[in-house]
């Protein structure tokens, strides 16, 4: 827990011990630890002196503040209409096959989570996906699989 505490304290030093700091704190924990655990949220509650329920209620509102276990790399395939029209289903199938998991799941080696997300703002270069903060556009099933393979090499 000490590394989470460190992350929290760093944000508090930057922004102050107030409610407005909550989302930056949660974002930094997700950045380093991939998702928010019960313990980490309690730690946030303690340090910001907010009720644990409020931390949970706020975190659960935002799609990118994952409160379920996620892998090191979170793949988010866009499912909004243009990406859907341009072949997102084939991308999903290809990645489900490659990773041997279904959408919504995490690989057993905790390397990848495969999720769907709403419009990520790359409709002119669809289909598109995010892997953590990186954007990948104009995907084909082949290029999508290749991207994953490259990540395995990292």
């Amino acid at each position, binding site marked *: 827990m000490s590394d989470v505490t460190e992350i929290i304290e760093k944000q508090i030093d930057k922004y102050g011990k*107030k*409610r*407005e*700091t*909550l*989302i*930056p704190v*949660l*974002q930094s924990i997700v950045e380093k630890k991939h998702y928010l655990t019960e313990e980490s949220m309690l730690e946030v509650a303690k340090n910001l002196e907010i009720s644990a329920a409020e931390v949970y*209620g*706020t975190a659960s*509102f*935002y*799609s*990118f*503040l994952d409160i379920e276990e996620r892998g090191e790399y979170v793949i988010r395939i866009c*499912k*909004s*209409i*243009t990406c*859907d*029209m341009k072949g997102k289903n084939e991308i999903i199938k290809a990645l489900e096959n490659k990773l041997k998991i279904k959408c919504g799941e995490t690989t057993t080696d905790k390397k990848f989570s495969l999720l769907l*997300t*709403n*419009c*990520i*703002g*790359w*409709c*002119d*270069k*669809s289909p598109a996906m*995010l892997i953590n*903060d*990186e*954007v990948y556009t104009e995907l084909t099933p082949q290029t999508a699989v290749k991207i994953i393979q490259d990540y395995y090499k990292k």
Partner: protein
Amino acid sequence: MAKSLRKIDIIFAPYSRCPYKVLENCCKKNKKDIIQNLIDSGLRGRGGAGFPTGLKWKFGAETEGDVKYIICNADEGEPGTFKDRKILCEVPRKVFSGMGICAHVIGATKGFVYLRGEYKYMVTALEKEIKMFNNRAQEMGLDFNIEIFLGSGAYVCGEETALIESMEGKRGEPRNKPPFPVQNGYLGKPTIVNNVETFVSSMMVCKMGAKEYSKLGTQDQHGSKLFSISGDTPNPGVHELELGLNVADFVEEFGDGDTKAVQVGGVAGFCIPRKKFVETIVGQGPTTGGATMLFNSSRSMYHVLQNYLEFFVEESCGQCTPCRTGTQQLLKGIKAVKNGDKPPAYLEELIKLSETMKISSKCGLGQSVANSFASIVENFKEEMIY
């Protein structure tokens, strides 16, 4: 080039040699003059609500407050919209100029760019630009600095009060209006929230002058607008066009020859069927963010509507009854009609429901669902049933 379509290149025109010259000049001008110029230009917000920008800044200047804030709404979550992404990548200085002029005019000392989490990849580059801006502002004697606040994946945070709630560390649930952010905004202080493109356009208005600017566009909608064009088009991307264009001309330019429908204004906007292309002018009435998606005849409009409704069901903040339950009812409703559990006449009930959502929902999200719902169901009824 089709008749009513006029392409221009103001927003992405390259920077002038001296960055922030316009801002520097504005800081020497009379604040009331700047505001009047903006009002005269007829510029309206480019995010979706379309509120007259000059008026907003006027209220901001007139509201008393020891502390005031400027927020650039870069939450660009409307499906089909990606213009702000391009602006922030290519011409961010124009955005910060606009913010700086606004700060000068209303007396704000702190600005934020609320950047959607999906655009986190551009943070490093943006922070570099922001650092440069903050230094330049200081050199100019403008007491104003900007900071990025990152979103975390919530479409509703594009609504200005939900955005503010998010910045205050809470769930992105829209507030009751009135009071408006200009009176009671971030941390209860007077706050101006404007879209990325609005700040750029404001800066252009200050540079060109209201008279030149209002020569563009129609009587009702002045100026130019960025259109994010995608879908069944050989030419997807961001295009800057004068307002007042006719949809038929638009389709001639950007369609793939088989366009069956055009979604104007993202999923919160209207679906124009082929038979109405000629009579529909884009820019009459509020334009929602400029997202334009083209569908050709291979597309099932039922599938399109289902995709939209699934989006709304997920992204609704869930606070108010009409939106939270209404979106679910509309989605389940069209499915029930499609698989025969409900008769086709039920579609009329659903349209009525969407109308009630439009007039009773707490924020623009719930209020806009009826736009695409009614326009798709009414114009593509057979596809909903068979």
